[in-house]
């Protein structure tokens, strides 16, 4: 029973990480329809930011975290400026920015792998190691509560929603489309960065950490559905529980556990492509 509870907490913590990455996708997909696979790399960049500020310069955790997140906002905003906006303005199809962002993914990863030696870099825990799981869960729930309040209660959130429902109509209603788009990318980068920073003490910052995170986050998003903010968290939690409990209790070798999220992704894409939660009408 003790074992079961510990497993449940650690599954919940990694589910929260997946949920954050899924939320980052969702923030960008909702208003723009663009699937940005570079979120995993953004998480990686933030983890390296954590390494530089917290391990090398030993800044206090809240300050370091604040700088990293502010930096991620800028990164997201810049990415949108450079790789997305010119294409949208040219009236290119949705595919073009998605491919451009794949280019950004590779560029980001290579820059990091040039700048740092290839071995993993440790990032310190904010508290004692045994409390870190609770810290992850707490922060994630706070972020999701904030996102939920933002979308449900504020005028800004409503304008995001309006853009998601109908871009043209939203523009005609006087909503500044390009501002919504750049905000959604900045926020997406910050949320992805938060996920990367939170997970980095457990797995260490490494330049190849991005793609697995991107896939797991996307699986969480597919499970939960892109329609609702809560879906991302629910999807992340479900995925993490399925993953960790298979590893613990199912008689298969550990390496196959990597396959669990991928199988989940396939099954959900086939059976329930809209996700578990439907968008609210």
């Amino acid at each position, binding site marked *: 029973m003790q074992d079961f509870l510990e497993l449940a907490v650690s599954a919940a913590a990694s589910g929260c990480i997946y949920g954050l990455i899924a939320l980052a996708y969702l923030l960008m997909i909702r208003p723009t329809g663009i*699937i940005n696979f570079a979120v995993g790399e953004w998480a990686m960049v933030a983890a390296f930011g954590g390494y530089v500020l917290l391990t090398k310069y030993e800044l206090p955790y809240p300050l370091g975290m604040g700088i990293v997140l502010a930096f991620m906002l800028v990164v997201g905003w810049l990415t949108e400026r450079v*790789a997305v906006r*010119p*294409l949208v303005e040219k009236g*290119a199809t949705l*595919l*073009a920015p*998605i*491919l*451009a962002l*794949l*280019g*950004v*993914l*590779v*560029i980001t990863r*290579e*820059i990091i*792998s*040039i700048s740092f030696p290839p071995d993993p870099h440790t990032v310190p825990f904010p508290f004692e190691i045994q409390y870190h799981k609770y810290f992850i869960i707490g922060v994630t729930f706070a972020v999701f509560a904030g996102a939920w309040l933002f979308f449900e209660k504020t005028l800004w959130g409503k304008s995001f929603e309006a853009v998601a429902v109908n871009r043209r109509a939203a523009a005609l209603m006087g909503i500044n489309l390009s501002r919504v788009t750049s905000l959604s990318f900045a926020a997406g980068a910050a949320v992805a960065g938060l996920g990367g920073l939170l997970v980095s003490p457990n797995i260490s910052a490494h330049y190849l950490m991005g*793609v697995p995170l991107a*896939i797991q986050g*996307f*699986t969480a998003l*597919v499970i939960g559905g892109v329609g609702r903010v809560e879906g991302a968290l629910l999807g992340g939690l479900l995925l993490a529980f399925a993953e960790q409990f298979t590893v613990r209790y199912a008689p298969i*070798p550990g*390496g*196959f556990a*990597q*396959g669990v999220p*991928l*199988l989940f*992704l*396939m099954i959900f*894409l*086939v059976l329930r*492509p809209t996700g578990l939660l439907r968008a609210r009408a």
Partner: protein
Amino acid sequence: MLLWVTLALGYNFLFGICGQVSFSHFAFYGIGAYSVVILLFQLHVPLPLAILLGVAICVVVALVVAIPSARLEGFYLALATLALAQLFVVLLNEGGEVTGGTGGIASYRLPAIFGMQLRGPWYTAVIVALLLATYFILRKLDHSWFGRACRAVRDNPEAAAAMGIDVARTKVVAFTLTSALAGIAGMVYAFVDNTVNPPIFGVENAFLLLFMVIVGGSGRHAGAAIGAVLLFLLPFWLAPLVGHHHVLVFGVLMLAAILLQPKGLIGIWDRFSR
């Protein structure tokens, strides 16, 4: 390099002409390579049968992925194939005796065909034949009813459907066909170095293939070939300058191509030759 060109041509048909993004092209390359090796040397199937079975495996896997994802709009095929490509590498690494794990399978030898051992330059001739065959098949298809249907599906699925084209079926057939071609190329690859191992068949190379087609010029056979040759040679030219970080240059090139010249290098060529 010739194999890369072959792959790029096939991928160009899927991505450039039919407008579908897939990341599993290298997984099928790998499925072809592994299945022919396993069939030949662990199950001792005769060579012609092994090739046929290998193609059959590719076709079945491709259908399993494509049929559900073609019903859905948008990028579900890209996602399903991304998952497939990752899953395939996991399976290879964990396959134990059958796939040889992370080390792969090595030290086998192409069985004699009609009593002849194909080696060295002769084997290069096989690859050239494969490249030409792939090119002619794809060109023929491109100029046929099916190629036009593919282009229609890429440019405007609704209009294509209104013209009586079965959009989902066109997508599934294009995906299955190009995947099978990749599988055949993989079988040829298996005997180039007489070794197969997992890293080659991962998502990384699938990205590279996408970059090749985009940089060269998507939707054009010549563009795909130029992109493949260029991106294959670039690492050698760049090695003295940036060492192993040529992928960074690829990323920049690809981003520049999308932003500045969506038709790729072949588009620049067209402009000057006019």
